[in-house]
């Protein structure tokens, strides 16, 4: 039992933090939002830092790092409110490494690691809320050649992606496919999400596909779990930044002749924000350290962590706006952007009620970090 970071992990944190400070200021981010919510040069910069290949094994040209390194990176990127869907590079590399046949791995992992290919998870559909175990998209096979048809929604930066991980129905089960962009994939309907990042509708018109695995649900669950762990860490970085901004404001803003930090009613709200941040951080560690556990144990742990994360992000975001007063609801000032990003985090990969349902359904007699 040890929660210290190694020197190498601290160096990695430092490098990412420096990059955020230098290249991803609030103004920089605003410009990216204004130009659509995705920056290809930024994604290339992340690749040059080695971050797109963080989970990609040595043999495929990646950094072959583990969940703790992933957590450290995401905490720092959370501070910058990164718009680009780096976590999808981690999701796709984890799913490919966990489930794909060798030739598919060789074809895609080096390109993902190098940042040449953005491969995003496209699992959501209209009418299915956060449920993973169902989908309407279908797959067909003819002489070993696969095609998929359907409509995926809310695909991260879909119109910039080179390929998609697509769960689809095949013979009454969900199988997972890798679908490269082609004439039969349509992402023309793309739009901003709440936080200013980019999303797309993905129309699949009998699109040529490669079978990743017939164990589609297990692969999807792994992908979502990798995404949840990354998101938890990202939220910790952003909650910490949001609390710092709020504390600075409380020490600067004067009313009734004193800084508003002098008022106990507000001090206690700041203390409660700190509580939610630290509960969130504790469960982010938990998620990270359970990411390599057996699938059932891993997924339950992610649901527990995501439930805490959702409660924490909502609390910290709402309170940050309230403690700022009027300036907190303006578009000009950063804190409303923190709030919106935190809000979106709760509603990504299953919101708090969704995960509460999963935790509730799986309760055992004993419970604890080690149970």
């Amino acid at each position, binding site marked *: *039992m040890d929660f210290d970071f190694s020197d190498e992990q601290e160096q990695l944190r430092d490098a990412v933090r420096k990059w955020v400070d230098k290249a991803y200021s609030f103004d920089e981010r605003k410009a990216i939002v204004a130009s659509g919510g995705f920056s290809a040069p930024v994604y290339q910069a992340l690749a040059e830092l080695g971050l797109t290949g963080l989970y990609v094994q040595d043999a495929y040209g990646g950094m072959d790092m583990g969940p703790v390194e992933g957590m450290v990176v995401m905490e720092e990127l959370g501070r910058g409110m990164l718009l680009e869907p780096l976590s999808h590079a981690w999701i796709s590399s984890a799913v490919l490494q966990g489930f794909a046949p060798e030739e598919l791995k060789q074809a895609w992992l080096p390109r993902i690691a190098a940042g040449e290919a953005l491969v995003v998870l496209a699992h959501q559909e209209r009418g299915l809320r956060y449920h993973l175990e169902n989908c309407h998209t279908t797959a067909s096979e003819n002489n070993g050649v696969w095609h998929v048809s359907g409509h995926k929604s809310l695909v991260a930066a879909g119109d910039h992606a080179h390929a998609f991980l697509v769960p689809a129905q095949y013979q009454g089960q969900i199988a997972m496919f890798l679908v490269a962009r082609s004439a039969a994939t349509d992402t023309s309907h793309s739009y901003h999400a709440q936080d200013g990042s980019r999303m797309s509708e993905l129309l699949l018109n009998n699109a040529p596909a490669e079978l990743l695995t017939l164990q589609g649900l297990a692969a999807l669950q792994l992908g979502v779990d990798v995404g949840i762990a990354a998101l938890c860490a990202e939220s910790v970085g952003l909650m910490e930044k949001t609390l710092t901004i709020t504390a600075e404001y*409380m020490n600067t803003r004067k009313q009734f002749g004193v800084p508003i930090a002098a008022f106990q009613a507000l001090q206690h709200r700041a203390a409660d924000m700190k509580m939610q941040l630290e509960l969130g951080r504790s469960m982010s560690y938990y998620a990270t350290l359970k990411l390599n556990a057996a699938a059932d144990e891993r997924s339950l742990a992610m649901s527990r962590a995501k439930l805490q994360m959702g409660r924490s992000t909502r609390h910290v975001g709402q309170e940050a706006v309230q403690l700022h007063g009027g300036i907190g609801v303006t578009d000009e000032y950063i804190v409303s952007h923190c709030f919106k990003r935190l809000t979106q985090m709760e509603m990504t990969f299953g919101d708090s009620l969704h995960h509460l349902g999963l935790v509730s359904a799986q309760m055992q007699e004993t419970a604890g970090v080690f149970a």
Partner: protein
Amino acid sequence: MDLAFTPDEQAFREEVRAWVKAHLPQQLSHKVHNALRLSRDDMQAWALILGVKGWLGYGWPKEFGGPGWNAVQKHLFEEECALAGAPRVVPFGPVMVAPVIMAFGNAEQQQRFLPGIASGKVWWSQGYSEPGSGSDLASLKTRAERVGDKFIVNGQKTWTTLGQFGEWIFCLVRTSTEGKPQTGISFLLIDMKSPGVSVRPIKLLDGECEVNEVWFDNVEVPADNLIGQENKGWDYAKYLLAHERTNIADVNRAKRELERLKRIAKTEGVFDDMRFRDEIAKLEVDIIALEMMVLRVLSAEKSGKQSLDIAGLLKIRGSEIQQRYSELMMLAAGPFSLPFIYEAMDAGWQGDHVGAAHCAPLASTYFNMRKTTIYGGSNEVQRNIVAKTVLG
């Protein structure tokens, strides 16, 4: 970073578990697991058993006869005791006053007092709060006047937990009214059999007398009983508070009580009621998050590499969770938590419980737990402290 305990730590846990299993009397664990009334003798019986093994002072260093365990080992010991249903160690002697005597007492005081604490034979109480000094403890007024080689003590302490059984009491007393209130306080050990000491139990909302008023009327205390220097008592009290960090969150007990909550909810038929079950699920995640927070503090203490400013959070969260599980247990029993039959909370009572036997103590425990957000520095005072770490 690693979530797992080391093989050595696992082996240590197994050793403690086996020993507790072999030595904890079943009649005690039965009471603890079912929240039945513990007598003075029950509490002391377990203290004496631990004392023989040398584990009552489980946080003590080897030089004072303790096992010399690190923060993680102490946690594992507490966890194994809690899960097995051992009574909580009454902390005033071994956990609270002993570290102060070790750090600031002289050799004579250490030889005189520590053996009785380590064996569990001498019952200690704490004399801090006064009727006019709760959260503002430094305003305390109990006066100790130096006359020759004695102190003459006059005043009143209150909320003295289990003081009706106390044989010795460690007190914060005022020895000076000059300067800041904090700088005129001394740390004095007082024999409760001294003439002029009187104790009156206070009946609480759960019908029990867990706390007391303690009066001092011209009580003569040998100057040899002063710990450290005169007027430095506040520093020693703060040292004591810093000494007890993760223990107050009581997460191990929370895990045990969560199991009990589930058992009660199943018996009462509300475990499959989604509205109720979801409340348990939320508490389960709360407890896991608290446990992770405790483990972070333990890891930081063990390695000394990180300084964490989250100890105040542990008290707030731990106390809220204690209140929540006791509340949910009572709600699980529903209307059958209403009968409040004093004798039904004793083990072996043969009368009609009205509801299931497990219902009898639920309201009492719920009432009792209201104290947790008040004592040990109220949660509002804790929030003041946490806010300082955020706002500077």
